[in-house]
């Protein structure tokens, strides 16, 4: 049964529409990441579900119950915000136990629950500390522990790793999914980091311009985005978009890039005759010195290592800058200068230039 069900939510402010017809259904124990650029309305959405903000239209069901009109304290959700929002005058223990205290739980129950969640989050040794004595990482875990302590069925996390350093963020990215699964809660997790969304979410709901543009498993969204808007939000460096005008030719669809004719294969037939942006992820481009079949000429501008990959900045004969990335750093033989780029048509995505809708490639 869906634990969180959003039906056609709408919300506007004086400045304009923020959310417009959002629907989403999250199963019990599932983690769904709400991902989108800043200003997309992610935080507003969480506030609507928590009940601290009122809907203009639509309805919200939590654990099968219509809570659209219910006051926040009756909705039974646990929340953690990106700025931690700990009570400064209370110890970590009291912060974590605050929801239980408010509910009138016994001292023994509070102690047992706080200690259990603290041990799960590895903060047992700092329970007596005040927030100002905690590191950012410990504050973040304390805020998370507070959200989980009362065993809520539903947990809302608003970009909880935003304010912790890169190293801890990476560690938490690895650990959070199992911690959340161990709690058994159904989770809506807001982030603006695509890697975090892919690492943590069972599914990702991409929020763009107040709408869910796509809701799918991480690997499906990366490989099979429904629109250019979604495709551009994933990948490092981001996807290349090359303007082309595909045409039907001998043995399939063809296009011209940099004066070379490139075969696009069968999956791009629908793109023929239209103004198209060809989406090529950097890792889908191979760069060689020789032209070979289906290569198009490029000028390698710079070679920049990126972790264990090598990123090439290249310029097409039309003057467009594009990226290719190769696994490994051994490829130091690659130098600036003329070269040829190739790609497997099965990994190319075609988007309608005007609407951004995908019209070819992908699954």
């Amino acid at each position, binding site marked *: 049964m869906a634990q969180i069900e959003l039906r056609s939510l709408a919300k506007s402010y004086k400045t304009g529409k923020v959310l417009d017809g959002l629907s989403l259904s999250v199963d019990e124990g599932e983690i769904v990441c709400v991902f989108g650029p800043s200003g997309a309305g992610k935080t507003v959405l969480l506030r609507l579900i928590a009940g601290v903000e009122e809907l203009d239209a639509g309805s919200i069901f939590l654990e099968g119950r219509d809570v659209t009109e219910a006051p926040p304290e009756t909705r039974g959700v646990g929340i953690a915000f990106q700025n931690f929002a700990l009570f400064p005058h209370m110890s970590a223990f009291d912060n974590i136990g605050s929801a239980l205290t408010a509910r009138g739980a016994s001292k023994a129950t509070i102690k047992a629950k706080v200690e259990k969640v603290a041990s799960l989050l590895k903060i047992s040794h700092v329970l007596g500390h005040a927030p100002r004595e905690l590191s950012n990482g410990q504050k973040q875990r304390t805020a998370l522990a507070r959200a989980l302590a009362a065993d809520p069925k539903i947990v809302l996390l608003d970009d909880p790793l935003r304010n912790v350093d890169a190293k801890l963020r*990476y560690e938490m*990215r690895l650990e959070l999914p199992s911690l959340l699964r161990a709690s058994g809660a159904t989770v809506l997790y807001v982030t603006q980091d695509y890697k975090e969304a892919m690492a943590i979410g069972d599914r990702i709901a991409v929020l763009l311009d107040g709408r869910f543009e796509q809701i799918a498993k991480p*690997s499906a969204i990366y490989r099979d985005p429904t629109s250019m808007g979604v495709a551009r939000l994933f990948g490092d460096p981001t996807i290349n978009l090359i303007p082309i005008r595909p045409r039907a030719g001998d043995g399939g669809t063809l296009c011209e890039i940099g004066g070379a004719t490139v075969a696009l294969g069968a999956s791009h037939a629908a793109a023929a005759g239209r103004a198209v942006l060809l989406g090529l992820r950097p890792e889908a481009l191979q760069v060689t010195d020789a032209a070979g079949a289906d290569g198009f000429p490029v000028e390698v501008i710079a070679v*920049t290592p990126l*972790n264990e990959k090598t990123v090439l*900045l290249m310029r097409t004969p039309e003057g467009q800058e594009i990226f290719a990335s190769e696994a*490994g750093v051994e490829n130091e033989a690659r130098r*600036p200068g*003329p070269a040829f780029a190739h790609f497997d048509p099965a990994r190319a995505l075609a988007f309608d230039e005007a609407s951004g809708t995908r019209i070819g490639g992908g699954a």
Partner: protein
Amino acid sequence: MNVVTSGTRAMQEIALSLNGVDKIYAPTAKAPVHAVKALDLDVRKGEIIALLGSSGCGKTSTLRMIAGFESVTRGAISLAGRRIEALAPAKRGVAMAFEGYSLYPPLSVRDNIAFALKSARLSAREADKKVAEVAALVEIEPILDRYPSSISGGQQQRASLARALVRPADLYLLDEPMGQLEPRLRALLRGRLKRLLTERGMTSIFVTHDQTEANALADRVAVMEGGVLQQLANQTELKERPANLYVATFIGEPPMNVFDARAEVGERVRFEVANGPKLDFSANEFSEAARSAIAKRSRVVVGVRPHDVRLNAGSNEARVASNQWLGDQSHIAFEVAGKLMVTVVFSETVAARGATLRYDIPSAKLHVFDAETGKAVSHGSEAA
């Protein structure tokens, strides 16, 4: 082929030299802050150096001392053959893009950039061309005729970068040059900037806390921590031969996996990790120097980079705690020795959570550190 690389440039000539440079803030106060300690640094002509470290490591103080915004407590700084540490900033022959070294408010962005060209005595046409070029590079053409107060912080930052890059100088000092940019533009600027700096042989030092930036742009990276230069090396060297545990675990994304171990050197070289991998190698996998260096320590820290752990090989086994696919790479975490050991594979690798997989840590990829000092003992078969 149009070859423009660091390797082929004549870079043997030293452009900038720091000798025994110290920076102590409030030296007479009860608690003076020793921000930079006995720093020696030689930068070759045409070289790009990154000063990398977390906040408070001393990187910004170093940059500000070179620029002349901060006095040098002790030591000497030479640039292009002359001592500069006592000179006013404007007399040092240095171009800079700094936070707080702001654009002139009464001048448009275009005039701010052109003003930096004044001493070059170019014709108006040449000057216009140079301004247009650098404006295109940092993508500020549409705002050239606006005034600093009417543009965003990110645009001001790029305008200030353009102003520094446009003029001839013996040294370019750039403070977090790509701070607030969206990801695509940041990747573009990295490539363009690297091309510009290498092609024109512009000696540069930039400060960053982002190792991705440092590795992408710099010929060599100076890793700083606690006011001390930990290591100055190119990125391959930093990864393959880190000088100490700090550098080893700071450089690399994700960071190196490390385990406390007890070393035993005889006919075999063994590292005993409590509840951890079996690390048992034939003695000839290590050079004599490496063996004797390891034998001197009983307690060590052993490390392996995530990209160097081999899956479905060797005799060690561990349970998969998580497997995260990021579109172009899988990050798989194993439960090893009471923590998570991460491996990275550039493919979508099937490894279900809870499954047990075999893995191997080859001796060639093993790093050994002294448990007390953190100093590197050996890298692969060689002594550090």
